[in-house]
């Protein structure tokens, strides 16, 4: 073999430190992966639940019926969001290892941080789309029931001002565009939960472990501000107790703060500034938890 036959390889292109295209590619493949897991079938169960609640006549008034319908549907939306965030995120990395997809991905010029970010983005896209679809289903149901109650009220007769008062009460408990902010609240909560889960899944030995610990962290994160109040009231508030509570407070995320959707569903008005602050806080959680996940994941051997 002569030397002329060997063509020297062109030097490889320098891989950029961070590429949104690569992150997006991983995110879209994660979305496909989750869709193939038939996650959207949950929407069918959700629609059935709404039909059931919407047609159970235990409420004492149309306002109460609408209020219950809203609470159950938005409660179910919130439950779906955080539970899905935990389960989907906990399953993704182990599934990639099991399918050996992870080796293929990491053998390409993809940085580990991009992989984690792509996975998280994929989960959040699926959660976002599901939440929007659920919001639409729920809104249609509420508007439909509300229109029915209003028509009944008008057909019932009476003095115009009394009918107006009854209609106003129904409207107050019916559909409001602010409910979209409640769904956004559930999305923010799910985002933080997903970020916590991705951190846990980077050093967990199994998906089951990740799911259980994530749920535990979620419950503790939800209850710790409540528990702190009681503990300080019931105990002697010694230095040791206070230190322990502070440790809990700074280590575990405060998920109770993200439950503001309950207040919006109950009728409270929310200012855009509050949503902006919550978005900023969520972004902080995502950055920090992704960075901490990367510390474990960066030199993990598979």
């Amino acid at each position, binding site marked *: 073999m002569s030397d002329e036959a060997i063509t020297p390889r062109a030097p490889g292109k320098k891989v950029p430190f961070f590429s949104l295209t690569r992150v997006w590619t991983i995110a879209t493949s994660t979305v496909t992966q989750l869709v193939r897991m038939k996650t959207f079938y949950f929407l069918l169960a959700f629609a059935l639940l709404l039909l059931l609640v919407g047609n*159970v006549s*235990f409420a*004492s*008034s149309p*306002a*109460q019926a609408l*209020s*219950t319908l809203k*609470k*159950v549907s*938005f*409660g179910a939306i*919130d*439950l779906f969001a*955080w539970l899905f965030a935990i389960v989907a995120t906990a399953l993704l990395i182990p599934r990639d290892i099991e399918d050996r997809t992870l080796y293929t991905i990491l053998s390409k010029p993809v940085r580990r941080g991009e992989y984690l970010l792509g996975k998280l983005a994929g989960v959040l896209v699926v959660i976002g789309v599901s939440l929007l679809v659920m919001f639409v289903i729920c809104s249609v149901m509420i508007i439909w029931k509300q229109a029915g109650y209003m028509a009944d009220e008008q057909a019932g007769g009476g*003095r*115009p*001002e*009394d009918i107006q*008062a*009854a209609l*106003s*009460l129904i409207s*107050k*408990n019916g559909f409001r565009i602010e409910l979209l902010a409640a769904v956004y609240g559930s999305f923010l909560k799910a985002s933080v939960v997903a970020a916590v889960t991705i951190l846990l899944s980077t*050093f967990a030995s199994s998906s089951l472990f990740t799911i259980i610990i994530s749920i535990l962290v*979620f*419950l503790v994160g*939800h*209850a710790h*501000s*409540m528990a702190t*109040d009681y503990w300080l009231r019931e105990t002697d508030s010694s230095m040791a107790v206070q230190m322990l509570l502070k440790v809990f*407070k*700074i*280590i575990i995320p*405060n*998920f*109770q*703060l993200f*439950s*503001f959707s*309950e*207040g*919006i*569903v*109950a009728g*409270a008005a*929310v*200012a855009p500034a*509050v949503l902006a602050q*919550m978005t900023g*806080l969520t972004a*902080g*959680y995502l950055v*920090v938890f992704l960075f*901490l996940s990367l*510390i*474990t994941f960066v*030199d993990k051997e598979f």
Partner: protein
Amino acid sequence: MKTLFRKIPKWILILIGLAIFGVFRAPVEDDLRTNLVSDGILLPPPAKDALGQLNQSALMGTLGGLRTLVSSYLVLEAFDHFSLKEWEELRSDYKVITTLEPRDENHWRDVVWHIGINATANMEVDESIPQFERMRRFNEYAVAAVELAEEGLEQNPDSAVIRLQLAEVYRGKLNDPCETARVYGEMIGLRDSPGYVERFHGYFLAACPGKEREAYEHLIKLYRESENNHVASLIINIKDLEKKLGIPFALRIPEDYPPLPGRAKGASKQENTDGIPDFTEPPGK
């Protein structure tokens, strides 16, 4: 430095990272929480005694941020108790419900309706319970309903629906026209108040001893305000008050007593023994 970084176990680095982030976010979160609770966007933590009454799954649900779902489930359970006339169980369910969601006026309205109207009505008719016990429980439920309504109004000071239910209890169960008038009076101008509250305030004021002059002035103002207010009950009340207060004929309203079901035209309204106007009672009964 890199070697030192690699020597430190990962979990320690993560804990340090969490702690640093926690130190920065904790004060921000505390401020946000205070603002959200005061704006009514975030529900305040449930009271300790309410948590004690939750069963294990409900407690987990509550701690897990599913307060609205837990309370909706308890509303269903309470409805079941209502169907079975289990008033004590119903009351304890609503204690938890209203603690979980104190700002939902519908829950307060419902518990006042259940205890103040349904439970008391049940005591009036349930012959399986001895008479003295029925009377005792009737009073207990009526008073409890008033207390619940007041508690609900502390949480929802502008609620018309709770006041409407409270007025029903004062009017139908405690036969207290003065308190009924007071509650209807408080409802005037509140959002969601039905249009009749202004007139009802006057009717019950008319039945409250010593408040006749005030009632007359209120009702005559409504009468002059709009022809839409010239309903039979208003005219009857004004005419009765004119007689009672000895208003000069020149100042009296021109209308005669309007005909009402079971009552001849021109006949004065009857009052039952409690002084509550009863427009359905035929004259001479």
